[in-house]
Structures are given as C-alpha cells and as structure tokens.
C-alpha cells in the first residue's frame, strides 16, 4: 500500500511568473482553501517535497534553477505546471527570452490552466498529482524489489 498520496508536501518555485499565480498558490495554502486538510505542507526544501509547483514560463536565466530543484527532489515526485504560462508559455510564449512551458525544462505530470490559476484548479491539480504520486511510489517499490 502506498502512503504518498496522504501527505503531499509541496515546493513552490516562481519561474518568471507575473506573481498572479504565486499569490494563488499561497492562497490555496491559506485559511480560505486550507490545503493542509489534504496533508499539503509548503516545505521550501526540495529534499522534503513530493510535488513541485512551478508558476510562470521558463526562460534562459532560470531553466538551470528549475532543473536543479527538480533533480534535488527525491523519488517519487510529481511536477505541476500552475497557470497558462507554466503550461505553454502563455502570453509570453513568443518573447525573445522565453523558452515556453515548464515541460521544455523538466517532465510535467499535471497541467493546471488559468490566468491566474484559481486555487480550486490548483487543489484539483494537487489531487490529480497525488494519484500519480501513488502510481510512481508503487513503481519505485516494485523496482526496489526487483533489485533486491
């Protein structure tokens, strides 16, 4: 049995977002929406986090940071692209410095659309994400068993 889905700890990174989605991410953790009901904790530490919430489109300056945070996170892990910019690049998609959505840098599991992304959409995305987290945890376990 997997327990990953019952305590999804998140880390939030702003990859050149306009701050609209960032405020909504924090709003989802505040009393009004209280994501801690689902066990969500904002860790601020990639080594403790299970879910990576990325807001904003990725550009040349921060692609290395996004990759670094992703690489420091420990399996099983899930990436959620929060907002239109993180999903596709949004209104900034043809800017000279913008690479596009977060999936240009790291593999994204869940796309949460919206400009800015609504806290409801974000919580839905996290619930979608924990399902994937469970699947990944199971795969990791069976892989460990095969090794042993």
């Amino acid at each position, binding site marked *: 049995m997997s*327990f990953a889905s019952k305590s999804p700890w998140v880390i939030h990174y702003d990859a050149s977002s306009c701050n609209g989605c960032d405020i909504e991410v924090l709003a989802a953790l505040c*009393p009004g929406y209280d994501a801690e009901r689902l066990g969500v904790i904002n860790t*601020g*530490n990639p*080594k403790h986090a299970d879910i990576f919430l990325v807001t904003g489109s990725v550009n040349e300056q921060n692609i290395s940071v996004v990759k670094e945070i992703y690489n420091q996170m420990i*399996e099983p892990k899930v990436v959620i692209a929060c907002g239109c910019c993180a999903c596709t690049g949004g209104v900034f998609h043809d800017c000279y410095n913008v690479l596009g959505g977060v999936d240009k840098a790291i593999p994204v599991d869940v796309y949460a659309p919206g400009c800015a992304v609504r806290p409801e959409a974000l919580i839905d995305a996290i619930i979608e994400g924990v399902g994937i987290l469970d699947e990944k945890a199971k795969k990791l376990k069976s892989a460990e068993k095969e090794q042993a």
Partner: protein
Amino acid sequence: MNSFLITLIATIVFAIVAPVLGCLLDGLDRIISARMQGRVGPPLLQPYYDVRKLLQKEKVSVNSVEQVYIACALVFTLIGGGIFFSGQNFLLCIFLVTLSALFFIVAGYSTRSPYAEVGAERETLQVMSYEPMVLFVAIVFYQVTGSFDVSTVVSLDHPIITYTILAFIGFLFILTIKLRKSPFDLSSSHHAHQELVKGITTEMSGSTLAQVEIMHWCENILFMGWTALFFITASPISWVIALVLTALVYFLEILIDNNFARVKWQSMLKSAWFVALLAGGINIALLAW
C-alpha cells in the same frame, strides 16, 4: 530484577508506546494550531501519514554517517525515556536527552550544507539556553527529596510543585525551547515561512527525516512526563490531575507557538539564562535556606 534489566524493558516499552502517543499528540497539535488560525486542519493521523510516506521515499543521503548519528540520537532519546518512566535517575535521563541532542547537532554539521550548519549552530544555542534550567530542576528535586530518583518524587505526600513553584515557572519557559515551538524554534521550524530552507534538517530526507520526526514525538512525550512529575504524588488521583494540568501546559505551548514570531538567538539565550538564574536560583536558595 536488576536496574539494567528494568531499563532495558522500560526502554522497549517506551519505544513502542511513546511514538504512538507522540504521533497522536502531534496530530492534535496540528489540528488545534489550524483551528487557532481559522483553518480546518489535517486529519488526526496526519503525522503518521507523513512518516509512512517518508519511509517509502527513495533512499538518498549526502553521506554515510548522517543516518548513524540520527539513529543514535533516536536510541538515546528512547533510553532516556525508559530510564525516566521506570522511575530511575532523573539526572541520567537529562544527560541522555542532551547526548541525543548532541548527536542531532553532529548530524546537522555532517551534511556540510550551509543551511544545515546554521541550523546546527542554532540547535547548539538552544541546548545552551535550556540546559541550566533543566539542571536546576534536577537540583531542586534533589533538595526536596534527597534523591535524584524519579520514583522518590512520585511517592511524596504533597506534589513537588508546592516546593518548586519558581523552578516550575522557569521550566515552563524553557519547555518552549525543548518542544521546538515558536518563538524559540530557531534550529528548525514547523512553519516554512520563518525558516532558512529547513534549518538543521535541510539535507535529511526519506527515512532519516522520518527518524527525526519519531524522535521529536518521543521527546515531546518525555518532556510532558517531566511536566507531569511536578504534580504527581503517592495518591492515584494526582495522576489524573497531573494529566489534565500537563494537557493544559501543552495547550499553552500551542497558544504561544501560534502567537509569537521567532526571536533572535541573542534574546533567546539572554532571556532563558535570566529566567533560569532568577527562578531556578531563588528556588534553590529558598530550599537551601
């Protein structure tokens, strides 16, 4: 039965009972904290879910000794709990808890992360801050009972707090440091908004972090035991009173945790030593006189 065997059995019992109680206490803590902040809060068993998840994570460690240090810290906490709850030497229990804290600090330093090192330094300052008062508590207990044994304290006719009210006030002050509650949660905070990445536990992950969590549960139960010791007498009804008062003390700690932002380490050290010298010192002087 010799004391070695008693300690061994008590440690094993403590190692089974304390994590269960500590987990429930932590879950209750988080629900009450959430209600104080106008939130619904997580389920009661959330700390258990967290630890189960951490145990399932991929095993990653920055070096090979970190896990050993953390395991030692956990084991010494368990032995300390076993010694305390089997009614043996209180002083030895204090030293074992300090030893456990030292292993935790060394584990923080061993990871070589700047954030963890700052956390380890702050943990050292926390130990420096609370240790005098804890020793003063042991001294006043000795002055009243003539023994460092926990069993003599609980067999008194009057609760020991009647002689040690000042020491109890000092103890309440440093209890906030020991329980890692704001404003004295300098080394590692539950609240992400006031933390340098994650303080001393920055580089710990998976099962190592799970052990740290379990250690904190056991520590909390042990410190609640220390608090209860002030109220317990030979009569069985005092155990119920002690339970209620200890729960009240824990509630007070949660209230303090939610109402204060973290202080600077200078304020913590100065205020903790000031309270220890004033409350502990006067209490010792009164009893000696």
